[in-house]
């Protein structure tokens, strides 16, 4: 939070007027999003609103047709995905993508070995970071299991641990709570709050309202590829247009 309050520091993520087009379909048009260090921003919106596309554009998986992506003030709009990892960007996937031929430990340690932190002995730091990441999400006891033996909740934890092993400054989470039980959601919310307290910037795509209300500092409501509204979660959910879009109630029915 201290870094976020510093007036001179550029935001961890600043997307300016991002657009992404597939032929005639505008998956994203003119989307601007800011996430500061130690802040949790949530992307909300109905299916097909462009939330996952936004995440993919930010981390270089999809090409922006217009607009810019600044990471910590540095323009990385057209950088390939692998390079963003060097700039402290890590992501999780909506559908967990573990390496099924590897154990939990190999999945996380392998990722940790991709990042070098200065002034540290390489093997020691990768191993330490992997262990820390697994302990953090509470998966250390499953280190020798294969991903096929894990529950969905554990697979989501593995996704998160793999991202944390990359020593990120910005975490992009694509539906980290989907399919989890209420208790598991509370755990994840607590974990993300801890990461925020460490100064990590988090951008999450999330549908689970309980989680959004509990953790979000700012919510961006996307509809048909553009930001309809942004602000604190309570304000967004009080917006009649947002409720109508989300629940699919015709506008007239509410107005009346």
């Amino acid at each position: 939070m201290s870094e976020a309050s510093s007036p001179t520091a550029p935001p961890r993520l600043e997307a300016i007027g991002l657009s992404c087009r597939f032929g005639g379909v505008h998956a994203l048009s003119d989307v601007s999003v800011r996430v500061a260090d130690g802040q949790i921003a949530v992307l909300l919106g109905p299916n097909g609103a462009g939330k996952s596309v936004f995440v993919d554009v930010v981390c270089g998986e999809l090409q922006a047709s217009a607009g810019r992506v600044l990471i910590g003030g540095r323009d990385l709009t057209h950088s390939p995905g692998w390079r963003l990892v060097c700039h402290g960007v890590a992501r999780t996937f909506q559908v967990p993508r573990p390496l099924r031929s590897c154990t939990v430990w190999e999945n996380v340690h392998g990722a940790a070995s991709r990042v070098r932190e200065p002034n540290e002995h390489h093997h020691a730091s990768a191993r330490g970071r992997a262990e820390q990441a697994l302990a953090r999400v509470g998966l250390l006891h499953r280190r020798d299991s294969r991903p096929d033996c894990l529950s969905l909740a554990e697979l989501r934890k593995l996704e998160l641990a793999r991202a944390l092993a990359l020593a990120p400054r910005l975490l992009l989470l694509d539906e980290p709570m989907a399919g989890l039980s209420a208790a598991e959601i509370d755990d994840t919310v607590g974990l993300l709050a801890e990461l925020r307290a460490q100064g990590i910037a988090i951008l999450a795509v999330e549908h689970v309202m309980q989680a959004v209300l509990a953790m979000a500092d700012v919510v961006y409501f996307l509809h048909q590829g553009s930001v309809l509204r942004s602000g604190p979660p309570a304000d967004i959910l009080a917006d009649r247009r947002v409720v109508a879009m989300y629940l699919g109630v015709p506008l007239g029915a509410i107005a009346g």
Partner: protein
Amino acid sequence: MSTFVESTLTTLCLYVVVAQSWNLIGGLAGYASFGQVAFYGVGGYAVALLMLDASLSFWVALPLAALVAGAYGLLLGLPLLRLRGEYFAVATLVAAAATQALAAWQPAFTSQGAGLTITTVGTHQTTPYLGAGGFTLLFAGLAAFSVGVVAVLTHTRLGYALRVIRDDERLARAVGVRAGWTKLTAFAVSAALAGLAGGASAFRLVTVTPGQMFDPTITVLTIAMVVLGGAGTVFGPVIGAVALTALTTAVDAVLPSSRDLVLALVILAAVVFVPRGLGRSGHMVRLFAPLTELRRPRQRPLLR
């Protein structure tokens, strides 16, 4: 040792080197190359030409030949590694055939079809011929080296990068793996290993011809060995090379005319019954698990 035992051992070790070379790109990175013999041939020709035209010692020519083959791997890999799966397989197959055609077309490479003959006797010889025992030792050393290369690579960050590329290239980008560069490195190292095998073979054969140095059977036999033994493991290709060399030697002794038929049946059976390779199946797993599986920290600190 009898000459028969020595020559069989030499052939076995030769195949271990080529199998490990294929294992790097086909097993670890998941890019099944059907043109591995191209690098074997380039290595062979490099040794022959360097010893003949540059009058270099074999011991200098061999590492240089590995470098030349590696460079040729970079050259071919640059365009070909953009392809995947069967497209990559077909493209490498064609590239190997084209390389053979180039070697056959260039008069300096073939001395008008008679083949290049490395001088091994008289005052012009650069290195005395090693003899059967010498070659067995040389190839055993190269085989150990190739196993070492694969074992070390498996346990480095490059090994992890290759596994992610093989299983999920999208995930590879998300964990910071520069897929294009990583594949190219693996392909070049794999080509250099094949070049090493080809270079040593050229000296052993004395006379090299395009038909011999670029024989597609070498590629096929190699792939069969790796798949039979367990692609992507450290010792699987060794198991496969031993099994197939033993089999071909036995069949040659008993039913020489049916060699290809028996080989084909065995490979078919292997693919159906042990699709993940001998090094990974049933009781063999328990025997070889500490060697073939990735090291698991804390549990079994066998290596390092």
